[in-house]
C-alpha cells in the first residue's frame, strides 16, 4: 500500500471537515490533497452511468437457469441431471440474435418469464461458463496443477472473495468495484456521496485502496434519533460528533468512530434526496403485496438513480443481494422461488428504469459463488465452478449468450463439448470473471490503461472485452 494514500488521522479529519464546510462534495476517498490537485485529462464525466451488482449468495445452479431445449442437447442434459432436470416442455424459449455455433436452442427455467421477455426484446444477455480463472486452464493442467488456479475452489467464502476481488492467490482486502472507484476518483469530483454503495451489508466487492464504500439499509439510511438542526437536538449531535473526533487510542475505536462519522456525514443528505423520489409503478412504495428483499433493495437503488442530480452523481456502483442458492437439499422445491424472485425483481427494476428513461445508463449484472454440480445427492447439488451470469439493461447487446455454453454432459471434454468436466459435473470456466468485470468496467468509463488494475488477470486472456455492452 503506497504511503501516499495514507493520511494521518488528524489531517484526514481536517480534510473531511473542510470538504463538508466548503460543500465541495469530493468523492470521500482517502486521497490526500496533493493527488487531487493533480487531476489531469478528462474532467468530470458529463453523463451518468450506474452498475448494479446482484449477488446470488450460495452458488446459483445456473445450469437449470439457461437450458438447451433442442435435441439431442436437451436429452444429454436430462440424463446428467436426472430428477433435477427441468422438463423440456416447461422451458421458456429464448431467441438468439446470433445463433449458437452448432444451432442449439435454449430456454429458461419456467419461473423466469420476466427475464425471458427482456432477453427476447434485447435487454438481457447471458455470459456462459464464466468463473474465476487466473489464466486459461486445460483439464490436464488442472489435474497436474501446472498452472496457477484460484485458491480454494469450491469453498463458498473464498469463491465469493474471488468474484469480489479477482485477486487469485494474493491476499486482498480490495474488490474490483473498489478499484474502479479508485480509478475514476478524479472524474467524479462533484459527487456528494460515495460512489460505491451497498444496500446489503459490508462487502469486499466495494472496498477500494482509497475508496471507502457507504452502507445503507434496504430502504435507505436511517436517521439518528434525537438529532436535529436546532436547540437541544443540535447540541446533542454536536457532542456526539465531538466525541468521535477525539483521538482514539486503539485501532478499533478509531475505525468505529470513522464509520459513525460517515453515517453523520452522508445519512441526512441521502435521506433527503430519497424523500423526493417518484413512485415507481413496478416498484411501488405501498405495494398490494410485500416486495421481496431483493425488490426492496432495487426500489431504493431506483430512487437513488432518480434523484442522482440532487447529490451530483455521475457514476455509481450499487451492491444488492439475495441468498438461499446453496441448494444441497430440496432443490426442486426451492429453485422456482429463487429464480422466480430474481426474474421478478430484475423485471420490475427494468420497468422502473424505463419509466425514468434511464435504461440505457444502468446495467444490472449477477455474480454468484459458483455454478453447481451436474451430479446430485438425491435432492440437491454441490459446489462447482463455471456457471452462467445474467446482464440486463438498455446498454446491453442483448438477446445473446456470450462465451460458450457447454454440452451438459458428465465427463464433458472441451474438444467435443466446449468445456472440461473436472469430475462430478464441474466445468472449468471458458470465460473468466476478469473478462466479465473488464467488460463492465470499460462501459462504466474505466480507461483501457486502467483495466489491468481493475481486472488483474485480464492480460492472460485473448478477449479483454466480451462485447456484451453496446
Amino acid at each position, binding site marked *: 500500500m503506497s504511503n501516499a494514500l*495514507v493520511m494521518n*488521522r488528524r489531517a484526514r479529519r481536517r480534510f473531511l471537515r473542510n470538504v463538508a464546510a466548503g460543500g465541495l462534495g469530493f468523492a470521500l476517498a482517502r486521497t490526500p490533497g496533493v493527488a487531487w490537485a493533480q487531476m489531469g485529462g478528462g474532467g468530470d464525466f458529463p453523463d451518468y452511468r450506474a452498475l448494479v451488482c446482484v449477488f446470488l449468495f*450460495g452458488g446459483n445452479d445456473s445450469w437449470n437457469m439457461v437450458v438447451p431445449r433442442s435435441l439431442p442437447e436437451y436429452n444429454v442434459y436430462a440424463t446428467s*441431471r*436426472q*430428477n433435477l432436470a427441468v422438463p423440456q416442455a416447461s422451458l421458456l424459449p429464448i431467441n438468439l440474435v446470433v445463433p449458437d455455433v452448432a444451432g442449439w436452442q435454449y430456454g429458461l427455467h419456467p419461473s423466469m418469464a420476466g427475464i425471458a421477455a427482456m432477453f427476447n426484446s434485447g435487454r438481457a444477455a447471458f455470459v456462459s461458463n464464466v468463473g474465476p480463472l487466473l489464466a486459461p486452464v486445460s483439464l490436464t493442467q488442472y489435474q497436474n496443477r501446472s498452472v496457477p488456479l484460484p*485458491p480454494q475452489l*469450491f469453498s*463458498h*467464502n*473464498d469463491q465469493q472473495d474471488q468474484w469480489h476481488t479477482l485477486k487469485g*492467490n494474493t491476499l486482498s*482486502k*480490495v474488490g474490483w468495484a*473498489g478499484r474502479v472507484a479508485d480509478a475514476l476518483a478524479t472524474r467524479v469530483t462533484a459527487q456528494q456521496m460515495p460512489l460505491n454503495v*451497498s444496500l446489503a*451489508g*459490508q462487502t469486499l466487492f466495494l*472496498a*477500494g485502496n482509497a*475508496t471507502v*464504500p457507504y*452502507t*445503507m*439499509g434496504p430502504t435507505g*439510511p436511517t436517521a*439518528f*434519533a*434525537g438529532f436535529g438542526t436546532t436547540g*437541544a437536538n443540535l*447540541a446533542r449531535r454536536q*457532542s*456526539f460528533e*465531538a*466525541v468521535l473526533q*477525539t483521538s*482514539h*487510542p*486503539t*485501532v*478499533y*475505536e478509531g*475505525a*468505529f468512530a470513522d*464509520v*459513525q462519522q460517515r*453515517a453523520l456525514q452522508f*445519512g441526512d443528505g441521502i435521506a433527503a434526496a430519497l424523500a423526493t423520489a417518484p413512485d415507481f409503478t413496478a416498484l411501488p412504495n405501498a405495494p398490494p403485496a410485500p416486495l421481496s428483499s431483493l425488490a426492496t433493495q432495487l426500489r431504493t437503488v431506483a430512487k437513488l438513480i432518480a434523484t442522482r442530480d440532487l447529490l451530483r452523481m455521475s457514476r455509481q456502483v450499487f451492491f444488492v443481494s439475495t441468498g438461499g442458492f*446453496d441448494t*444441497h*437439499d430440496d432443490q426442486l422445491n426451492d429453485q422456482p422461488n429463487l429464480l422466480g424472485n430474481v426474474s421478478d425483481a430484475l423485471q420490475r427494476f427494468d420497468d422502473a428504469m424505463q419509466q425514468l428513461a434511464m435504461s440505457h445508463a444502468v446495467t444490472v449484472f449477477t455474480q454468484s459463488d459458483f455454478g453447481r454440480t*451436474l*451430479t*446430485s*445427492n*438425491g435432492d440437491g447439488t*454441490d459446489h462447482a465452478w463455471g456457471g452462467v451470469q445474467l446482464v440486463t439493461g438498455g446498454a446491453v447487446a442483448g438477446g445473446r449468450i456470450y462465451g460458450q455454453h457447454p454440452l451438459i454432459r458428465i465427463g464433458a471434454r472441451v474438444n467435443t463439448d466446449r468445456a472440461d468436466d473436472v*469430475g*462430478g*459435473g464441474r466445468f472449468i470456466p471458458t470465460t473468466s470473471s476478469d473478462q466479465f468485470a473488464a467488460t463492465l468496467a470499460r462501459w462504466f468509463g474505466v480507461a483501457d490503461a486502467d483495466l489491468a488494475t481493475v481486472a488483474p488477470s485480464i492480460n492472460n486472456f485473448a478477449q479483454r472485452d466480451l462485447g456484451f455492452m453496446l
Partner: protein
Amino acid sequence: MRRSINKKNSRLLSLACALLLAACGGSGGSDPEPAATRSPPPAGPPPVTLAQAYKFLNQATFGATEAEALRLMALGNSSTAYARWIDEQLALPATTQLAYVQAGLPNPIPPGFVVDILNSQRQDIWFQNSVRGPDQLRQRLAWALSQIMVVSQGPLSGYPFGLADYYDMLARDAFGDYRRLIEDVTLHPMMGRYLSMLGNQKPNPALNIRPDENYARELMQLFAIGLVELNPDGSLRRDGLGNPIPTYDQPTIEGFAHIYTGWSWACAAGSPANCTFASTRATIANQILPMQAFAEQHDTGSKRMLTYAGAIRTSVPAGQTPAQDLRDALDNIAGHPNVSPFISKQLIQKLVTSNPSPEYVQRISQVFNNDGTGRRGNLGAVVRAILLDVEARRDPIVSTGAVDGKTKEPLLRLTQLWRAYGGSAQSGRFVTVNAQGTFGQGPLTAPSVFNFFSPFFAPTGEIADRGLVAPELQIATEYQNTLVTNFFFTQVFNRNSRSGVTNPDIVVIDIEPEVAVAGDSAQLVTRIAARLLGAHISPELRGQAVLSVNRVAASNPTQRVAEALWLIVSSPEFAVQP
C-alpha cells in the same frame, strides 16, 4: 462456590494472623517472635483495580457490573483473584434453554399453530441466561462456540426445540473435550439438517447420485482445521515456493462425504411405525436426539481421510458400520495439528483481542495440545489459559494505533448495559428486542454458516493497511451502527426507571443512583463511568458528557442522566473492549 468462599475466608484469617502476630492458637508450639525484630512481609502482588476487574469481566462475561467487579477484587490479588473466579465458574453447571422453550408449547396444540413462533421464546431465555445466569463464563463460551460451529434459525425455524437443545449442548460441552464437542455437534440433527449430513445417501451411479459434500467441507474448513496449514502460533506454513499449504483436497472431501452417509432423524416417539432411512422424519421428540445410523444407506467402501504427521489412520477400511466410520473420521480430524492454533486463536479473538501476538497463540496452542495432565483438547484449560495469559491481563497500552483488545460485539454492548443497569421487564421476559435486525446478531440467527462476521475481516484504512483484523467491525456499518445507537437512545431516554413504562414486557434500566447525584454533573459522569467503564474514561468523553449534562436544567435530573448515559453508551470507548 460455597467451598471457595470458605477457602477465601480461611486464607484471610491466616493472613490476618501473620500480620497481627497474635497468638492465634493455630498450630500451638513456640511463642511468636517479639514484634520489634520481625521484618516486614515482602510486598505481594498488587490488588486488582476496578478498571482491571472490568477489563477481565468484559472478557469473561456478558458485561462487567460493579457488584461482580467488587466481588472479584475481594477474591484475592492480581495473581490470585482471576484464577479463583475462573475456577468458581468452571465448577458451575450450565443453565439451559430447552425446558423454557418446551414450556411455551400450548397443550393441547391448537390447529394452525406454527411452532416457529417459539423461537421468540428461545431468544427470550437466551437473554435471561446471558444477562442473569450465574454461569457467565460458560454461557460466554457457548456464545463463542455458536459462532464457530454455526447453525442458524434461517432454514431451521421449524425446530425451536432442536435449536435450543443445540445451544444447550454447546453450553454443556464448553469446558469439556474438543473431541466430544465435535461429535455432539456432528450428530446433532440441527447441524445435520443445516449442513446436509442428515439424509445423506450412499452413491447411486445409475442416477448420478453421489454423497453430498457440504458437511465434509465445512466441518474441516470452519469447525476444525481451516483451509491452510498453520504453525502453532497461528501463522501460515509455507511450501518451498512460499505458498500456503492446503490442508485437504477434493478427493479427501469426497472420502469424508462417503463416511457421512446413512444418518437421519432418530426413530422415536411420533416416528412412523416402520421407521427407515426413507420414512423417518422430524418430530418434536427427535429434533433433540442425536441422529440415527441406517446401515442400508451407508457407503461401505474404504474411504480416504486426512494425511498428516502423527495421523493414527489416514483412511477407513471397507466394511465398517456408520458409527465406526464416524468415530475414525472425527479422531482423524480432531488429531490434526491445525486444530490447536485454529481453535485457540478464534477463542482468543472472541474473548480477549482481535490481534493476538503469535506468542500468545502459541502459548494457548500448547495448552490445547496438553493441559498439563496429558489431555489434548481440554477446552476448560484452554479458556483458563486464555484469560490468565499475560497478554490478556496487561493494562491497556496508551498509544495511538494500539491493537490490544477488540471491538465489542454489538449484542454484548446491549447485554452489558442491561447487566450494569439492572435491565429487566416486569414480566421478567426479554421479548421486545429484534436482536438480529437491530444489532446484526442474535442467538443462532447468523445469515450463513460463516457467522455474523468473518475472523479475517479488516475495514479499509489503518487496520487493513497494517495487516490486522477487526472481525466485529464487519457488522458495524453506517446503517447497523445507527440502528444500535437509536436503540440505545430509546432505552436510555424513554425506558428508564423514571419513564413511567407500563408495558410489562418492555425492558427498563434502573437509573436511580444516577438521578440521586444528577445535580452535580461531574459527580454524575463519574458515577456512570464507574458503572459502565470501570472508571476508565477519557478526558474528552468525560468533558463532553459533563457539557451535555450542564445543558439541561437542574430541575430535570432524569434528562441530565439520560444525556450523559446515552453519550457514553454510544461512544467509541464503550464500543470497544480494552
